[in-house]
């Protein structure tokens, strides 16, 4: 269709923020920085995304696919899912 697509870059930015907020709230384990060598942030995010996808029984892709984004938008408890 020739209608201007919604602002994909804006959606993307929002989704990226949603994913980062969600993973930092619910899938960040406070670890001793000396134990964990510095990791590329993207790799770290993919690892935590896989952990979240595994917890919710989603396809483990390490990517913020639609199913994963939908799950992240559901109202939930504020207690982390890992590392209590």
């Amino acid at each position, binding site marked *: 269709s020739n209608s201007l697509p919604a602002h994909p870059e804006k959606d993307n930015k929002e989704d990226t923020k949603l994913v980062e907020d969600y993973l930092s*709230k*619910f899938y960040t384990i406070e670890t001793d920085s000396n134990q964990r060598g510095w990791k590329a942030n993207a790799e770290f995010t993919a690892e935590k995304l896989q952990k979240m996808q595994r*917890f*919710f*029984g989603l396809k483990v892709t390490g990517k913020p696919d639609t199913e994963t984004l939908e*799950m992240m938008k*559901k*109202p*939930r*408890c*504020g*207690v982390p*899912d890992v590392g*209590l």
Partner: protein
Amino acid sequence: YGVTLPGWKKNNLTYRIVNYTPDLSKEDVDKAIQKAFKVWSTVTPLIFTRIQEGIADIMVAFGTKAHGHCPRYFDGPLGVLAHAFPPGSGFGGDVHFDEDEDWTMGSDGFNLFLVAAHEVGHALGLSHSNDQRALMFPNYAYISPSEFPLSPDDISGIQSIYGSATKTPGKRPTVPTSPNTCGPQISFDAVTTLRREVIFLKGRHLWRVYPDNSEVELELISAFWPFLPSGIQAAYENMKDQILFFKGNNFWVVSGYKVLLGYPKNINTLGFPKGVKKIDAAVCNKNTGKTDFFVGDKYWRYDESTQSMEKGYPRRTVNDFPGISQRIDAVFQHKGLFYFFHGSRQLKFDPTAKRVISEIKSNSWFNC
């Protein structure tokens, strides 16, 4: 399930409702919170006492965004609804609700009772479960308040920390010992069919027997029906895919995992005279749609279609069931025959020929 050990080191816990939400009346908030604690006290030895002043083990409060000195912030409407902290001092055990949400007593907005029951699970030491049927699953899901909200996963989790409910409040339960299924003296409190299974009940345990493939599973009654007490005395499956459980002059009607609303009821609502204080055994004859209730050396007959007791009862059991002369512990029907249990003996009875076919051991169904 997941746990954050060691949990509370005592069974008597206090809670205090520090403030309220404008979404609901104070009475509704009090009721929802109390009911949330009751969910967990039903399946553990824990006892919850509400205090109005001072520091309680579990402080319950409503707040928005950055609230008090809490290290976790809320995020406005939707998103995070509430949070709680595992057992401990300071914030330990505290429960916070996001005031920016729409708190209700029903299915619209977010049901305060359901969210509170989840958060109290955290305050007792449970973390999130990835079982989507579990109350401790992270995402909000509305379920009818008439249903008991805990799944077997939730119950296993909380009982792994505190053990199951005990008769003497406050006493920490000993680890439930499993009955000796193949012991020579094994007897049963009640037996019922459940679709293609036969369920044997004794004390706090139940066995699920699959006669077709001779499989047997031993479970805690509380893992399936946490609202049932231990020591059920009679049980039967009616014509509507429901099971009725009896203890003393109370009975429960269960469909699947769920107990029907308004139970337990008194057995005299079935038509028993006041003098009948308990039922020894019960069985619904699927060929006639009539249920026989056995009490001492007599029995009553109940018509499942008219839902009423038949006239001319009670009658002496031995007159209509020749050979069944003693008080019975339990009875069920399998492939048209009745199996009467008395202590460690079981009598196989043909209700058409009206005679005992054979006498076998009570645990003959367990491949001992």
